[in-house]
């Protein structure tokens, strides 16, 4: 299994290396290599999906493999794989979309001078994204997180001859860095407090209460900062619409389906450790983004920008769901959204491709992406139209589509959250408002693009053709996967995914605060309960019935399965029957500790109430969301198709006045950032530059000047005083030498004289 996973992960990296180095010398620019690597990766992922995920059908399925990588003081830093249901699901989503986008790009990028480099970058992205979903610790997630950001930067700025594309790439990268800085602090905070970066050990540490209170909230919010950047949530959302400067397949793969979902994936991974406060921050940011972006999408004319803001809005939904505790709903929407949004983007790429060709033919320099230049494409590009329509109704949340199921789950989850915490009634309101807007702007897009007459004229109309099969096949596949039947199986009710494989395999895990908060006076009790239940499960034969799917099958598949979370899941998240069984066992075994039994009963009652609220909220949300979806579609149809006078868009634009201007101008978010953050930074840089130039440089130059003056003084001292002393000594010695020289005549007889004189002197001294 690990061999297979390693192949899926490494193959794109290898093809990236080959194609980036040798791409121009390979036939067809080496696209077949990257296609081969990602398609085999897709089949391998599907094998894992059917063999292990659906095969074991166990919510707690987890296989991990890790090894020591670095030793930091007392800490062993391990890296490795953690393959669970979420990992396999992400693997399938990423390889599926990536494989289809690779295929699509063969048609879309045909004839581009940098054709092979494009495929190399796509491979690099696939590698990074697959690594991100497979690794088991935050540090490696962070590494791949940055790699994903890098490949996104490279692909946004792919046509870097255009200034706008180059700038968009930089903007995306820098905006992401702001969020990533927060995430890095969060990682360091987690590491210093828990001493581990392994996701499961972090979850276990938090559950055991090693990190709690304000610090845990801070850790959750800081880690969420990374998700704000990557998933383009409200304060850092500005990069995503600009990222549409990249080639359209890239928009579909990176900026709609996978990379931007990485933030949501991260929040889902950290779901267990989120405190109530952190969850609220997340929920409000997500909810606000959902509505905020939806209002902007209503007023955009660029087809890709509408989709970009729609992506923002849907990501907001996912984040809100996770914040509101609807774990399954958030992740479910991630998966379904990846399918239909990729389909929409690829569809828009198909439209733009055709429009570009047609406009080029009539020598018009009109914008090929502007919806006001389109119209009537329904008959010209039927396959694109039908797939686009299916994806649109899925995004709008019309029943029988996957989007309906997941969006409904999110709205139900947020409604249930509001019913339990009535203070936060605004969350579902944000969600429902965004839902009606979503249906409206998507059908506005459909009517402007596919209905009416082709606006550039008949001469250009003759040049509009359906795209080649490499581009339409991915559309068909993705549109088919947007139908609800794939997600409700093995259930049969198309309105309810609650019994489907997805809901079964991704139950809401308990959050750390839920384990501790409800029983303030016996905060440690729940953990003891869990231990007892665990014992029961391993000793009693009845327990094997409970754990049948869980324990036996997975052990068969691999030796390295961990069941850390399993007991928790049974207490808090198993289906009702399972929980009751466990509870009965618990009562029988633990009668001597009546307090425990009472606690467990209270807990079970609360859980039932919880479940009831969810059930009720779900039904209400479903009815409201169907009504809202259809009313949104109705308004769009009335305004743009039937062209009712009362709903004429031009009239409403005037009537809404400043509100329309705000929506059209993205609520001036770029302008506000320019006025505050960017100009502020530039101003600060100028002040600091002045400070550097005059104060710091002044100090440095002053010091240098002082040094020079000192050196001059010392030089003078050296030249005159020190050298003078030395010369004086030499001069004195020279004088002596000259005197002594007189005696050395070199004449023998003179020496004899000296000898005699001195002998005489000695004798004289002796005598005297």
């Amino acid at each position, binding site marked *: 299994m690990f061999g297979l996973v390693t192949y899926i992960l490494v193959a794109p990296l290898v093809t990236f290396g080959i194609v980036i180095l040798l791409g121009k010398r390979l036939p067809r620019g080496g696209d077949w290599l990257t296609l081969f690597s990602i398609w085999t990766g897709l089949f391998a992922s599907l094998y894992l999906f059917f063999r292990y995920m659906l095969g074991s059908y166990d919510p707690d399925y987890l296989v991990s493999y890790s090894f020591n990588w670095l030793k930091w003081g007392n800490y062993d830093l391990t890296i490795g794989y953690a393959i669970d249901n979420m990992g396999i699901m992400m693997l399938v989503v990423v390889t599926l979309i990536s494989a289809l986008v690779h295929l699509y790009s063969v048609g879309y990028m045909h004839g581009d001078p940098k054709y092979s480099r494009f495929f190399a970058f796509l491979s690099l992205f696939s590698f990074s994204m697959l690594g991100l979903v497979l690794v088991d610790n935050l540090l490696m997630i962070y590494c791949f997180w940055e790699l994903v950001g890098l490949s996104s930067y490279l692909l946004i700025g792919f046509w870097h001859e255009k200034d706008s594309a180059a700038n968009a790439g930089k903007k995306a990268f820098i905006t992401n860095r702001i969020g990533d800085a927060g995430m890095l602090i969060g990682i360091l905070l987690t590491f210093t407090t828990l001493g581990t970066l392994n996701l499961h050990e972090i979850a276990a540490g938090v559950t055991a209460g090693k990190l709690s209170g304000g610090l845990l909230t801070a850790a959750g919010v800081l880690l969420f900062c990374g998700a704000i950047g990557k998933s383009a949530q409200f304060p850092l959302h500005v990069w995503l619409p600009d990222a549409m400067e990249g080639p359209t397949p890239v928009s579909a793969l990176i900026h709609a389906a996978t990379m931007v979902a990485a933030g949501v994936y991260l929040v889902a991974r950290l779901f267990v450790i989120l405190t109530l406060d952190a969850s609220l921050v997340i929920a409000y940011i997500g909810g606000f983004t959902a509505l905020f972006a939806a209002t902007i999408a209503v007023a955009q004319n660029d087809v890709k920008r509408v989709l970009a803001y729609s992506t923002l809005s849907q990501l907001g939904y996912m984040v809100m769901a996770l914040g509101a505790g609807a774990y399954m709903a958030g992740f479910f929407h991630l998966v379904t959204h990846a399918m239909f949004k990729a389909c929409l983007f690829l569809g828009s790429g198909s439209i733009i491709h055709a429009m570009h060709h047609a406009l080029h033919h009539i020598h018009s320099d009109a914008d090929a992406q502007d919806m006001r230049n389109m119209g009537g494409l329904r008959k010209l590009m039927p396959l694109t139209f039908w797939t686009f329509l299916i994806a649109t109704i899925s995004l709008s949340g019309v029943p029988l589509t996957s989007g309906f199921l997941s969006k409904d789950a999110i709205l139900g989850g947020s409604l249930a959250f509001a019913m339990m915490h009535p203070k936060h009634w605004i969350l579902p309101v944000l969600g429902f408002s965004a839902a009606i807007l979503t249906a409206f702007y998507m059908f506005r897009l459909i009517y402007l693009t596919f209905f009416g007459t082709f606006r550039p004229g008949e001469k250009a109309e003759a040049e509009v053709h359906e795209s080649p099969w490499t581009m339409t096949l991915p559309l068909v596949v993705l549109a088919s996967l947007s139908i609800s039947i794939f997600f409700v199986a093995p259930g049969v009710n198309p309105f309810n995914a609650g019994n489907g494989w997805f809901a079964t395999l991704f139950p809401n895990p308990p959050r750390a605060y839920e384990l501790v908060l409800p029983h303030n006076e016996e905060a440690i009790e729940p953990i003891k309960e869990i231990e007892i239940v665990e014992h029961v499960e391993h000793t009693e034969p009845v327990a094997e019935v409970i754990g049948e799917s869980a324990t036996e099958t997975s052990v068969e598949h691999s030796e390295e399965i961990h069941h850390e979370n399993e007991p928790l899941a049974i207490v808090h998240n198993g289906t009702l029957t399972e929980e009751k069984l466990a509870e009965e066992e618990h009562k029988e075994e633990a009668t001597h500790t009546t307090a425990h039994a009472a606690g467990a009963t209270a807990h079970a009652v609360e859980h039932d109430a919880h479940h009831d609220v969810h059930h009720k909220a779900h039904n209400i949300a479903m009815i409201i969301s169907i009504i809202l979806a259809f009313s949104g579609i109705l308004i769009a149809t009335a305004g743009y198709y039937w062209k009712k006078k009362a709903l004429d868009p031009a009239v409403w634009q005037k009537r809404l006045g400043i509100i329309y201007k705000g929506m059209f101008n993205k609520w001036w978010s770029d302008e506000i950032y320019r006025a505050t953050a960017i100009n502020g930074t530039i101003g600060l840089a100028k002040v600091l530059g002045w400070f550097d130039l005059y104060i710091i440089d002044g100090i440095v130059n002053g010091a240098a000047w002082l040094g020079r003056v000192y050196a001059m003084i010392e030089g003078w001292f050296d030249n005159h005083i020190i050298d003078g002393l030395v010369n004086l000594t030499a001069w004195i010695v020279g004088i002596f030498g000259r005197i002594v020289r007189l005696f050395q005549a070199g004449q*023998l007889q003179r020496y004899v004289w000296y000898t005699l004189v001195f002998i005489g002197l000695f004798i004289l001294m002796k005598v005297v």
Partner: protein
Amino acid sequence: MYNLTIYLMVSAVLFLLGLFAVMTRKNAISVLMGIELILNASALNFVTFSHFSSGNLNGQVAALFVIIIAAAEAAVALAIFLNIFRIKATSQVDKADLLQG
């Protein structure tokens, strides 16, 4: 019997004559002859003391040494003077001032 004083006086006169020659004569050969006189004066001294200290022959031996040294010295000195003559074309000792400081 001649006494010691007479011998020593003769020796002293010899020494002084030698010294006088060494200090005053310009000719190198004359200087060399003065040195011979000094050496013989000292040899006479040795022999005298040997004679008057009964039975001690050390002085006699020393005198023999002096004679030998005088011979060797004459040979070396003559060689030196020859070389000086070759360089300076003179045998005057006051002209030979090559080692003047």
